[in-house]
């Protein structure tokens, strides 16, 4: 008995000591907590606008509550459903098609043995990430335009006809996804390169002693070793399916393709910021976030089936 209580006292004392010892760490942690409280959680109060007929004059607490009217309008209006559908189509295409590219690029760069070449390629491919969509957008317009675009010049030389790539839904979507690949692949590859760099070289040595070719080493050593990184990225990326980037769409859109290019973020910009309908645009934004949350959980649940889940 006595021993036990003594043990308990010792544990308590140790806890107290631990707490004391970590006070400086906690103090250092404080700004992070504040950051999240002030910039991430406090703005969430604004979400009540989704259930209000929000008026700037009356504010959060004075505006009239309208229940689910805003959501009802969203799901009853064909154009809104079209916008949600566009978001999902573009988001899923972007996700599925762009996802393997950084992995492939990292694997290839990893195979390069000439150091200066490797470094140069790495630097060049991640540069586009730092260009804004305004620049990438006008580059796409220049490349695919009908009167003077490179692609159409070649096409005209061969077939004698030009094709309105920027005006047709299918080709526009291809340009949309392609521009994502061009811009983000190099940058996204960095994390895989880091993972590849961390693989124990003895694994490769063992594999090559067993007679593995370079290709087989890639398949049986590199890929399994970076699989956890791939899964984490997959789950994180799934969250961004429903949030098709505003900048990208806004800078690539042309009038004739708006029926496939109008997504939730551009709609919210138009109705929320330009028309000042904060209630309904918040409702749309909230729905968008819910969608993202569901997608993250779904992908994680699938990953769990293979024992690779994030949580």
């Amino acid at each position: 008995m006595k021993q036990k209580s003594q043990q308990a006292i010792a544990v308590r004392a140790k806890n107290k000591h631990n707490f004391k010892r970590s006070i400086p760490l906690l103090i250092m942690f404080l700004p992070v907590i504040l950051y999240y409280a002030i910039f991430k959680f406090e703005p969430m109060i604004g979400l009540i606008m989704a259930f209000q007929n929000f008026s700037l004059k009356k504010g959060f607490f004075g505006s009239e509550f309208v229940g689910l009217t805003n959501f009802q309008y969203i799901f009853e209006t064909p154009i809104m459903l079209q916008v949600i559908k566009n978001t999902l189509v573009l988001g899923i295409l972007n996700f599925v098609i762009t996802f393997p590219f950084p992995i492939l690029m990292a694997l290839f760069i990893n195979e390069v043995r000439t150091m200066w070449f490797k470094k140069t390629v790495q630097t060049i491919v991640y540069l586009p990430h730092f260009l804004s969509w305004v620049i990438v957008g006008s580059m796409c317009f220049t490349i695919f335009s009908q009167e003077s675009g490179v692609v159409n010049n070649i096409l005209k030389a061969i077939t004698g006809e030009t094709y309105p790539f920027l005006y047709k839904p299918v080709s526009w979507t291809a340009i949309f996804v392609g521009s994502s690949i061009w811009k983000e692949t190099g940058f996204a590859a960095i994390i895989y390169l880091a993972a590849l760099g961390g693989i124990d070289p003895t694994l490769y040595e063992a594999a090559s002693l067993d007679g593995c070719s370079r290709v087989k080493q890639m398949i049986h050593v590199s890929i399994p070793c970076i699989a956890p990184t791939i899964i984490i990225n997959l789950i994180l990326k799934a969250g961004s399916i429903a949030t098709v980037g505003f900048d990208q769409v806004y800078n690539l859109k042309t009038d004739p393709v708006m029926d496939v290019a109008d997504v939730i973020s551009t709609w919210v910009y138009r109705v929320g910021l330009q028309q000042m309908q904060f209630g309904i645009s918040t409702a749309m934004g909230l729905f968008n976030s819910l969608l993202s949350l569901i997608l993250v959980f779904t992908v994680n649940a699938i990953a769990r089936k293979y024992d690779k889940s994030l949580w």
Partner: protein
Amino acid sequence: MRNKKLFSIFAASAIMASTFLAGCGNQNETVSNNGTATENEQGQEEGNESGEKPKITVSIYDRGTLDPSEGTMDDNRWTKWINENAPVEVEFVSIPRWTSVEKFNALFASDSAPDLILNWGIPNNWVTDGLLMPLEDVINQYSTEYKAIMEEYPAMKKAGSVDGELYYFTALSALEPNHTLVIRTDWLEKLGLEVPKTEEEFYDVAVAFATQDPDGNGQDDTFGMSLSFVSGQMIDQMYGIQNDGFVVEDGKLVFGWDRYEACTKMKKALYDAGAVDKDYAADTSGEQSYQDFINGKLGMIGLNNGANVSMRTTYTQFKENNPDGEFEIIALPSTSIGQFGGCLGGGAAVCGAINANCENPEAVMKYIDWMNSTPDVYNTLIYGGEEYATKTEDGVWVPKDEEKSKKEVYGSDYTMPVCTLPIGHTISKYFDKNNELDAICLEYLDQATEAYCNEEYPYEQGYAEPRPALDSQLSVILTNTYSNAADGPIKTNLAKAIVGGSEYSVEQAIADSKKACEDGNGQKLVDFYTDWYEKNKDSLITDEERYAMFVKE
């Protein structure tokens, strides 16, 4: 040793925390410092004789173009000049020009919007939300100058009213040309064509310009017309489409479907015939078409501010590239819908309102009256006054040192509430007829005035027409259906028809658009508009009132 480490961690976090806090604190301090600084200066300059001036806050656009050595838009030589001369003490609040509405929204939400809100165009939502003060009583009680101008030009009151109640200040300026249709007369002559008077002639000229090699270089590298930005809008205007697409027909406010159909057919025909740059949809600012024009590759173009001071640049650049080229400003060709005057600038333009929380509307009114009391205020802020410019006998202010004026004279945004029509300011006052280039610009201004400021052409949609305030539901319906300013279904379908070749006809586009409007509950909006027009048509601006704002010889 360990303690030392601990101490350094402490110190680091303390420093971080204090910088964070100081960051917040400093800002407040600067504000109050500024406040006292202005007060001190006031005290020194005014002495104690005039007593305390009432204090107001006024918004001012920040276009990000001010030379840093001049200070900031809320504190510089002209704000000081205003504070020295105005009967009130003004504290200016900077508003980014191109996101002004968003900024005002944020200020309203945090209860810190200025007393006098100045913006070109005020969203009706601010009225419905109760953020603005009704002006009728304020003007009747406190105003003299502004009230007098408003009584002389009834259009001001009508333009400033929302559903019959006066909320907005309007800046009255002469109704003068804005968009202009420009044509290469040397190309016309070369191909033996006449200035197009009808839509058929317009189409023929545009196609001829594109296909008959008017620049004579043996290459198929010219276009007849453009569809981007103002050029495209001028084709809309040929068919009587302006603003939001709603038009008055047989005394009723209806959506102009037939106009859109005719207009889109013309655009599609031009596109299919190769008379326009096919990449127009990527040229949203019209910059590409402007470059084509000054480089001698484009035969007709719609110019924004097309008879104003920017004509100096346009003409100079054009002549540099095409020494033998000639161009003229022409009237819009007549169409199956009628003959229209195009988009004009000026008139009674909504420019401001008073914050509902303003404590001293009398002082705000005094400030606006002061701005309108004498031409000196305007001339000083626009041209820098006699220190910077000399006035010719025609009343034109010529800068003494152009470079110096460019850098140090930037007061035009402070003059937003000034009514320039009563003080006789017109576009022509920017041009000195003794200057060769200015004399040419004056000629173009005359051409444009004759072509567009003409009482024979209907101006029912000449400039922003008053529209009713919409509640939130109707606003969303408008965005989702009839709104052609945003990327609504109508704009998309019509654009698809223009570029769609034989796959997608204009008739189909109109039918699809009508269906989209129906699905989006658009009928509710149309009914609301129709009803509103029926009730308010007598309080809208009449043609007579509009023509009163033309420049009188």
